[in-house]
């Protein structure tokens, strides 16, 4: 067995096919025996993967209907996410194990806590043939940082100073931040942080010049919002041998059951979000696979710490003891998840939720806490909405659980437009939903003063200044171990006194036909292994 064989075998794992390998072997000067037989390792790897090139991959997603759009840097509905993933690459991405990997960047690092260096790979082309330069990267960062465009990633770019980006050469730029911010690297690796060409749709995410142009594995061929989009293979894609499909067709289905029927009938190859009740139906089929991703997504119940009765920390602690977490996961999520301990970001290396004592259902203890706070026989409204799986179910079971603690919870199930209407972020007690993030970016979104979605009003908590100080210290600490210690202190504060009841982390339950291969278990926010990493690491077998 040669080292060349090992190298080729790795190439297979990365997705090369036999013809590619023969070419590659020739290029590397490896002698291939007559008949094109490769080394044993490579043959084994090829047999294992059985990649077939070509074909049209058909995906069914839930969409927002006529308001669907395609943009390399913004999303609202899942349909928008699936479409973004076809056409754009980022500087870096978050892999299946929730580690940051480089993508368009060959270098992306914090030189200091307030200074970031970005260098891109050479020779990458956009869909229109233009070569990617650092100017495109600078333009992309500025576009996201433009507040009035309202792009999804804007909130994570608070520390970016659009005026202080120094172009060092055609492939390199140095960013001078407004303040120390080590979280920016992860922000660049978010899937919606696509790199777009200079001049790309400057006024809106609903279209504009160049708005379909990216560097990604597929080019947009046609798009009818609310119905369907067709994407064709980018023949010039920079990753060797990828993508495998000739075409990807993404079809909107407003109804989840219709998606399942289409999958059962072989009219589509994969779908997102199988309804719990239909999982057994899909499982019974030999030609279909249920694909479960254990993510860090959560649907908390949020107590506003500055509003009665939650101003008293004993009430907040009592409420956290009134959640029967195993029951909420078993019934509320049909078991598709795992219990949590009031701390978010389970995949952050500094996650401490498992180190603190697991909170258990304890109505007795809750009762005595409420008594001590002089808040017995409480009645309170809990606002929830079917905006995401688990929000209504969790709230309903919690209301049931709370009765044993002498608390009457009236669950108000309202449409998403009302929960997220004018009263949003003003409710006293409400449900919400979040995807998977690391701790510091999540805190910036949901816990800090001025955070876009500060649903618990954590900044009104008397001891908040300490939390804010710890945050500033953490984002300025480049050393991972030291930073982890600071983050741990922050989590302790939220664990003891915070306003979130985080009862579980959810799984994503998708399904695909066994004709398709290449999906890997993924911890991220996105369905179907980030849609097969933008439909480039999956293939027909």
């Amino acid at each position, binding site marked *: 067995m040669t080292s060349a064989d090992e190298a080729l075998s790795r190439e297979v794992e990365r997705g090369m096919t036999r013809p590619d390998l023969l070419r590659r072997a020739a290029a590397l000067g490896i002698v291939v025996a007559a008949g094109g037989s490769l080394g044993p390792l490579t043959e084994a790897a090829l047999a294992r993967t059985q990649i077939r090139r070509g074909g049209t991959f*058909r995906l069914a997603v839930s969409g*927002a*209907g*006529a*308001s669907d759009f395609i943009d390399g840097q913004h999303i*609202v*509905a899942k349909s928008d996410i699936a479409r973004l993933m076809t056409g754009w690459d980022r500087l870096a991405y978050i892999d299946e194990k929730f580690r940051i990997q480089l993508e368009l960047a060959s270098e992306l690092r914090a030189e200091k806590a307030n200074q970031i260096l970005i260098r891109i790979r050479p020779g990458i082309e956009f869909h229109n043939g233009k070569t990617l330069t650092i100017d495109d990267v600078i333009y992309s960062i500025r576009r996201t940082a433009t*507040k*009035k465009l*309202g792009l*999804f990633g804007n*909130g994570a770019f608070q520390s970016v100073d659009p005026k202080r980006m120094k172009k060092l050469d055609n492939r390199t730029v140095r960013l001078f931040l407004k303040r120390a911010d080590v979280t920016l690297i992860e922000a660049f690796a978010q899937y919606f942080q696509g790199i777009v060409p200079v001049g790309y749709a400057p006024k809106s995410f*609903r279209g504009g010049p160049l708005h379909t142009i990216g560097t990604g594995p597929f080019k947009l061929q*046609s798009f*009818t*919002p*609310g*119905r*369907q989009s067709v994407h064709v293979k980018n023949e010039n894609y920079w990753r060797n041998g990828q993508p495998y499909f000739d075409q990807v067709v993404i*079809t909107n*289905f*407003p*109804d989840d*059951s*219709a998606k399942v*029927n*289409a999958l*059962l*009938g*072989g*009219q*589509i190859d994969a779908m997102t979000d199988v309804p719990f009740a239909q999982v057994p*139906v899909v499982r019974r089929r030999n030609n279909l696979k249920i694909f479960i991703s254990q993510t860090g997504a959560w649907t908390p119940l949020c107590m506003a710490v500055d509003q009665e009765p939650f101003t008293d920390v004993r009430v907040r602690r009592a409420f956290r003891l009134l959640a029967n977490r195993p029951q909420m996961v078993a019934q509320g999520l049909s078991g598709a998840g795992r219990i949590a301990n009031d701390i978010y970001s389970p995949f952050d290396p500094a996650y401490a939720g498992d180190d603190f004592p697991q909170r258990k259902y304890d109505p007795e203890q809750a009762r005595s806490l409420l008594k001590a706070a002089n808040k017995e026989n409480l009645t309170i409204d809990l606002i929830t909405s079917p905006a995401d799986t688990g929000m209504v179910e969790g709230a309903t079971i919690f209301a049931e659980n709370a009765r044993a603690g002498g608390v009457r919870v009236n669950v108000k199930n*309202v*449409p*998403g*437009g*009302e929960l*997220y*209407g004018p009263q*949003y972020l003003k409710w006293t007690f409400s449900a919400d939903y979040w995807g998977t993030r690391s701790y510091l970016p999540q805190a910036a979104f949901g816990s800090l003063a001025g955070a*876009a*979605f500060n649903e618990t009003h954590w900044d009104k908590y008397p001891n908040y200044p300490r939390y804010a100080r710890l945050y500033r210290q953490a984002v300025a600490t480049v050393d991972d171990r030291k930073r982890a210690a600071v983050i741990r202190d922050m989590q302790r504060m939220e664990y003891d006194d915070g306003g979130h009841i985080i009862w579980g982390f959810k799984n994503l339950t998708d399904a695909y036909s066994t004709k398709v291969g290449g999906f890997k278990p993924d911890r991220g926010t996105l369905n179907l292994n980030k849609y097969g990493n933008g439909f480039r690491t999956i293939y027909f077998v």
Partner: protein
Amino acid sequence: MALWRGIPGFIVRRLLLGLLTLFVVSVIIFAATQALPGDAARSILGRGATPESLAALREQLGLNEPALQQYLDWIGGFLTGDLGTSLAANIPVSELLGDRLLYSAFLMLIAALISVPLGIVIGAVSARRRDTAFDHTMSMTTLGLAALPEFVVGLTLVVLFSTTVFQWLPGVVVTEPGVGPWNYPKELILPTATLVIAVVPYTARIMRASMVEILESDYVEMARLKGLSERLVLWRHAVPNGLAPTFQVAALNLAYLAGGIVVVETVFNYPGIGLALVEAVQSRDMPVVQALALLIAGLYVALNMLADIATILVSPRLRTSLAAR
């Protein structure tokens, strides 16, 4: 006033009454959409909307104007053929719905072309063979089917013919945008069958009831006594007279189909106005919801009116009594 007399007068009166009904309906639709919680701006921008972008979009969409002004703008536009602009898609509603209206009309048309004659034949034959095994079987079957809502029928057909028992037919309509569903005959079978099953039982039962009455009437007895064959008695003498109430039922059912397609299109993902309505409600796209509700109401009124007129035209007694007034 000759215009108010006779059959033309009847038609004019019915037209005016229909318009009045539509006006009332339009007020109700508008009031209902106003009362719905949540707003389009929030729904378009998603949870990540900032207060500034929300305010700007509300202004742009005219959501800040007084309700009466919004109503007048809407109904005025409607009367001049301007259905407004979809809040979600940012294109004219007429453009958004154009194809979809056609697709839904096509589905309704083939369902009607199959279900009305089928209902009439089943009803007539059941009456002719009253109290036979055929009649009893048909009675039980139609009663059972009439009791089932369309989504149950639709999903049962999917389970039977598409997913679980047999895998013969596609259970979902996946069409390319811009390509009419008539290019996918196989995909159309189950949605059409669902609509047919929803309509046939009513038509058949009414047809049977009126035929039973007619077959016992004096003039049918007379025809029999003249020695005409039973087949001729049934199809030449009895059926034409039994059609009047059936017209009513068929028209009501067609009107009902206009509502039923909302459910059927959702079950089968059929790209018509029903699916558009569901999506529009989900995204609080009020101009689309309002336009579709009013269109469906208009269709209801129109079909009822046509049924009344057709009934008069096929019933000599009604025809002469109106003409004499």
